[in-house]
């Protein structure tokens, strides 16, 4: 009898988590950003928090500069990581001495958390970091101040380094998996039809790996856009990425600031969601047209 409810019952626990924690959290956060504070009797909804962060003289510049910075860092990181990942996968899939070791080492940073990656970038790229010292040994610099500012910089370079370092293996492993399971036969076929290496790359490999790369890139973009710890470690006071600003505001004892922090978070979620959906729709159309 309860055959018919079998599938809903199987889905229920997972959907409960998603609906109550995820959607519930988002929904309640949205209400708070709209001024909903029942405990102090505030049940009138208003867009004041949004107005304040977007347009006020006090917070507007913080928001907009933060938005451009966050967008720049996310898009640049995603694009660079995807490109380098494809290149890496092409390098690693050939047979060569030490391939197994190289492939193993390639994946080694997958379990390393982003916070550690960020700290690692500090150790490597700060003005008294490892790279600077190597350069000094080679006579390029005489003091730490000579080394360019690559981390804790205004352009988010340090963050980009950190994200790219982490995400190249992430996307790369996916590309490798696709190539190894599907690639060989198609390539052989193309070869026997006269396609040279570049043509095979363009007409066989890229179409084959693009869906997987696109999916992974979406995850990477969403993650980097909403990341807190990496900008917190590698960023500067101004401009600050949006997540960092959001958290600062949220932890302010002033309830208005809290609502504003919440509003920035909602805006972050909205931007990512819209961009991702648009990206997916657009890329599906392009892929289908191919």
């Amino acid at each position, binding site marked *: 009898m309860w055959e018919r409810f079998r599938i809903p019952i199987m889905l229920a*626990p997972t959907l409960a988590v998603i609906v109550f*924690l*995820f959607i519930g959290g988002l929904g309640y956060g949205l209400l708070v950003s709209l001024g909903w504070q029942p405990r102090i009797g505030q049940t009138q909804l208003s867009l004041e928090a949004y107005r304040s962060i977007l347009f006020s003289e006090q917070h507007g510049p913080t928001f907009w500069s933060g938005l451009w910075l966050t967008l720049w860092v996310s898009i640049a990181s995603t694009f660079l990581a995807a490109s380098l990942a494809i290149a890496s996968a092409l390098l690693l899939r050939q047979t060569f001495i030490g391939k197994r070791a*190289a492939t193993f080492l390639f994946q080694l940073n997958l379990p390393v958390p982003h916070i550690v990656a960020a700290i690692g*970038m500090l*150790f*490597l790229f700060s003005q008294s970091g490892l790279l600077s010292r190597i350069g000094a*040994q080679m006579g390029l610099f005489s003091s730490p101040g000579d080394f360019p500012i690559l981390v804790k910089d205004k352009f988010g370079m340090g963050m980009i380094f950190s994200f790219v370092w982490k995400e190249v293996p992430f996307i790369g492993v996916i590309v490798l*998996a696709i190539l190894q399971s599907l690639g060989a036969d198609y390539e052989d076929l193309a070869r026997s039809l006269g396609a040279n290496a570049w043509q095979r790359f363009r007409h066989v490999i890229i179409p084959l790996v693009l869906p997987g790369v696109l999916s992974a890139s979406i995850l990477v973009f969403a993650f980097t856009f909403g990341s807190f710890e990496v900008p917190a470690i590698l960023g500067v006071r101004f401009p600050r990425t949006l997540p960092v600003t959001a958290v600062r505001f949220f932890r302010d004892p002033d309830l208005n600031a809290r609502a504003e922090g919440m509003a920035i978070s909602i805006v972050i979620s909205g931007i990512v969601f819209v961009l991702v959906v648009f990206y997916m729709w657009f890329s599906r159309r392009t892929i289908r047209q191919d």
Partner: protein
Amino acid sequence: MTKSPESPTKRRDRVARVLHGLAVALLIFALLAPLFAFLINAFAFRWFYPQLIPSEFSLRAWQSIFGPNSKVVGALWSSAAIAIGVTISSVIIGLPAARALGLYSFKGKRIVEFLILSPTIVPGIAVAMGLNINFIRWGLAGSHFGVALVHLVPVMPYVVLTLSGVFANYNPEFEEQARSLGAGPIATFRYVTFPAVFPGIVVASLFAFLISWSQYILTFLIGGGRVVTMPILLFSTSAGGNEALTAAMSLVFIAPAVLFLVLSSRFLSGKSGAIGGFGKV
């Protein structure tokens, strides 16, 4: 003895191979470089610019970490307890959903799939902030349980995605065969279903563990300073200027994660099941 001249194709191949080798070496070096930086820093005591190698090594940072006043051990326990709890519960919760998605089609399936995957494209900050207020009200804020609950949000999509990939390649007729031979539901699960999905469970557990183990902002917002996991501790230590301590702590922090990866790497070669799931996003 005369050597026959190398044909231009052979030379081109040789050059290509050398370049290839260099490129691979460069790639691996770039990926391992931070590790070297951590190792040197963790044991450095006096390390002045522009020395490449510290002039004085020391085990101070390590003594501090494993010493009596260390907060590291406590933070490790907190991280582990939460991560293990999240891993076990996410697999138990996600397994039936994955089975439903992998084996059956039904009305509204695409919406369900989209819902379950949506936490991957919506940053967790807004969710954690939204939950924070209610968690305080319900007494969940500042507790390990509350933090673990929040960790489920980013974890569930990956667990369900991985496991449903496994079920998509699974033949449920094996279960019918077992039942036909006299196996009840529990015996069927134990002898037929579980061995077949076990590799997927390992991979899903790996994802769940790593995501929870690495979490900072969710723990920060819900834990409210009372739940100190390794990322929380590491974050504040990194701002403290003690690079040796920061480096050593980082190494201690990533060790269990790397270990878990290495131990489960056997099951990752069949990853195409899980990866195939990603292609569906």
